[in-house]
């Protein structure tokens, strides 16, 4: 059984390591007829040098994983039905849809698809039995991070994406809260929602390279409203003004947007008094796994300012690195802190004073100890996903 793992347009480092982890997880399984699983990852095209480096990361340690160039080709849905007349008629009234292109068989040679859900790209045309991997539906909670207003194209595309998702074999989620969102927000029937174990980055070697006694905090963030930038910066300002001493490094795929040296376009509209705190923090842009590993090796704790990231990247990295975590208290963070056994401080309000208090608590190591709960992890792993994709 050959399964395609199709990444979304603009897939970042968080999607890529998940694709690799999922590929390796599925390769450990067998198809219901006892045959081995084969994996083809569709990796969106970028410049060829970068793409090759990303391909190498995905194949590192497991050359059974095949990586193909991917481009999502947008076509009118009626045209897609003319191209693939055998496809199930599920997308009536959806004006256009996305087809995966790989400059070859276009993944039609695969038996099933696992699509990394992205509502921005609309409906994926279901040529093959399709499942969706849904990290979160964060636009339910922070729409501004994805759309400036109701006229944004996102909302049209999202409707079409949800229509496709409702017809899929299964939508895989890692927490029951995200499952609730897939039900109540995306409108997928409960019997099509599958809770799977949280994927974790594999082949990660953490080697402490601490050279001083100074505590080092990595701040995982991104330049959008999901990361509550203004409150986070103001909290840092308060923390430092009140004598906080942890060295803070802002870690992001777009860290340059925060950096005083490059214009700080991510900080438009934030009061200058708050912005001044960026003069006392470091900025690290991470594009590849190696960039991140280097930073994790010297970190004492991770703080993520995300307010609705379903699979909080900072929390997962803290879990793998064996260091504590600071973040906002929302259902998915609570669930993952427990299932992954991460010592944490979860602040209850999006309030700069509360966040500053949490940073002080982190500095003195006042974390809630990890209480890993194996019972909450789905016991059959990802095997049910394969069964759903296989079954009629």
């Amino acid at each position, binding site marked *: 059984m050959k399964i395609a793992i199709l990444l979304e347009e603009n897939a970042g480092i968080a999607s890529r390591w998940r694709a690799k982890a999922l590929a390796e997880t599925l390769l450990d399984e067998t198809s219901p007829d006892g045959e081995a699983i084969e994996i083809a990852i569709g990796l969106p095209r970028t410049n060829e040098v970068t793409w090759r480096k990303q391909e190498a990361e995905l194949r590192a340690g497991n050359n059974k994983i095949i990586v193909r160039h991917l481009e999502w080709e947008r076509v009118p849905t009626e045209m897609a039905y003319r191209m693939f007349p055998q496809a199930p008629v599920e997308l009536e*009234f959806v004006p256009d849809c996305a087809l995966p292109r790989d400059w070859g068989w276009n993944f039609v040679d695969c038996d099933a698809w696992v699509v990394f859900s992205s509502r921005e790209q609309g409906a994926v045309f279901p040529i093959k039995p399709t499942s969706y991997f849904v990290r979160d539906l964060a636009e*339910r*909670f922070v*729409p*501004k991070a994805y*759309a400036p*207003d*109701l006229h944004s194209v996102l*909302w049209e595309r*999202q*409707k*079409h994406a*949800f*229509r496709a998702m*409702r017809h899929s074999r299964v939508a895989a989620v890692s927490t029951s*809260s995200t499952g*609730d*969102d897939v*039900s*109540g*927000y995306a*409108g*997928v*029937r*409960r019997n099509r929602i599958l809770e799977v174990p949280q994927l974790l980055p594999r082949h990660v070697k953490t080697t402490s390279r601490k050279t001083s006694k100074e505590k080092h905090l990595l701040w995982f963030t991104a330049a959008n409203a999901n990361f509550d930038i203004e409150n986070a910066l103001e909290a840092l300002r308060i923390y430092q003004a009140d004598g906080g001493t942890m060295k803070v490094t802002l870690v992001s795929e777009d860290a340059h947007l925060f950096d005083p040296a490059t214009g700080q376009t991510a900080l438009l509209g934030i009061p200058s008094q708050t912005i001044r705190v960026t003069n006392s923090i470091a900025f690290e842009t991470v594009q590849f796994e190696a960039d991140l590993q280097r930073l994790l090796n010297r970190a004492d704790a991770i703080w993520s300012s995300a307010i609705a990231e379903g699979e909080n990247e900072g929390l997962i990295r803290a879990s793998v690195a064996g260091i504590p975590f600071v973040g906002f208290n*929302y*259902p998915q963070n609570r669930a993952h802190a427990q299932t992954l056994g991460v010592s944490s401080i979860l602040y209850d309000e999006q309030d700069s004073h509360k966040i500053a208090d949490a940073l002080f608590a982190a500095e003195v190591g006042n974390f809630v100890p990890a209480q890993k709960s194996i019972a909450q992890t789905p016991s059959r792993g990802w095997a049910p996903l394969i069964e759903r994709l296989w079954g009629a």
Partner: protein
Amino acid sequence: MIVSKLVRSEIGVWSELPPGSRWANEGISRIVGFLIEGAAESAEFRYNVLVPRGMAEAVREDLRTLQARENIDWLVHEPTIEFECTWRAANAEQDFPKPEMPSLLADFANAHINVDGWINTFPHFTGSRLLKQHKAAMLPDAIAYDFPIGWDNNHHWGPQGEFVTWLDIAHDTLSNADAVIAHSKHVAHRHGVKLLGLNPDQIRVVPHAPPDLAPILPFIQDRTKTEETRKKAAYILREYAALKGIEYLRQFPFEEVPFAALATQDRVTKNVGRAAEAVRRMVRSDRENFKLITTAPVHSGATWTLFPSVVENQQTHRDIISIPDLPREVHAALFHCATVIIHPTFYEGIVGSLTYYEAVSVGTPCIMGVGPHILELLETAPELREWTFDPYDIEEQISLIRKVCAAPAQAWSKQISAYENRRKRGWDVVARAYAQAATGADRPDTLKKGQ
């Protein structure tokens, strides 16, 4: 044993709504429909609806959907073109106030409609003053005088503004009537006596009989919600979404998702915005998987209501969904499928809330914002107080939603008896009370003669 009277009393219904007006599903038109059905049940009266020429067919079309027979339980009249030509010729020299239609209609009524009494459906229908027979006039409410801000000020509150002139017209029309029918004590007192200066003895308080949605959904047994009935209601909602091209709700699993429903127009009194805000907080702040589906339209950009800003500025349109103008079956399905019905309104002119009656009639509990209409309901149903909230208190509203959602069947079981008690007084009784007010049969002297 029901004994039908051989000769029915003829009751006139006076309406000056011009051709092209909306009739079907409008507030007072629905009450006329209920009255006709009530009269059909008792077989004591026949309702004669009089409308301006050009309006009759639209009214007939609506009345033909009732559980009542044309010509036997109801008739619709309009002046003929011949009458109008003759009338205009005869009155060419007369200095009638404009518009002339009410005078024409009244002359037609006096000459050609033989009824025992009239019911005027609105206080601003001035032609009723010219009727020669006994008459009653309805006073639904004078809502603008309780909630004067939020309308078009120049249009409504200028020296000759609509509400300003309404007050004089309503006073004159209602004073001229032999009886005034109010639907609640609070309207009779606050608007009838205190605002309009009517004589309290002139006012008859005739509350509506509570509506019942269950007959619209025949798969519901004993008003009870089951997994199966919710599935069927959800199917109706999905079919409607597909028919209307409401893409987000096409194939939506309504029966698997907890949601509140809120059925109303959006008006300054309706408080839709705070119900929407309650659901917004539940979803965005407390991360609860919940939705609000409302029939209130989103008046984009309007500032007289808080509702559009909650939806548009906060982009909550997937969790706070507006689907206005629902057909009756879809409305009933929405109420059955919902986990809870919210009635956040500050004020209604009736006793209680139609949405409460409709909700529990199909197995769904309702929570109610406290206003004079709810306080009047609580006088006879104090057990419902547990399900009421201060309409300004969003957190209290949220707590009540959560309480209901935790055990909806239990909540409903505590709300149903008040409804069943009120249902003992049906539309046949209400129709009789209207007819008696119209004919004067309920006056003490008449009652004495009849004894």
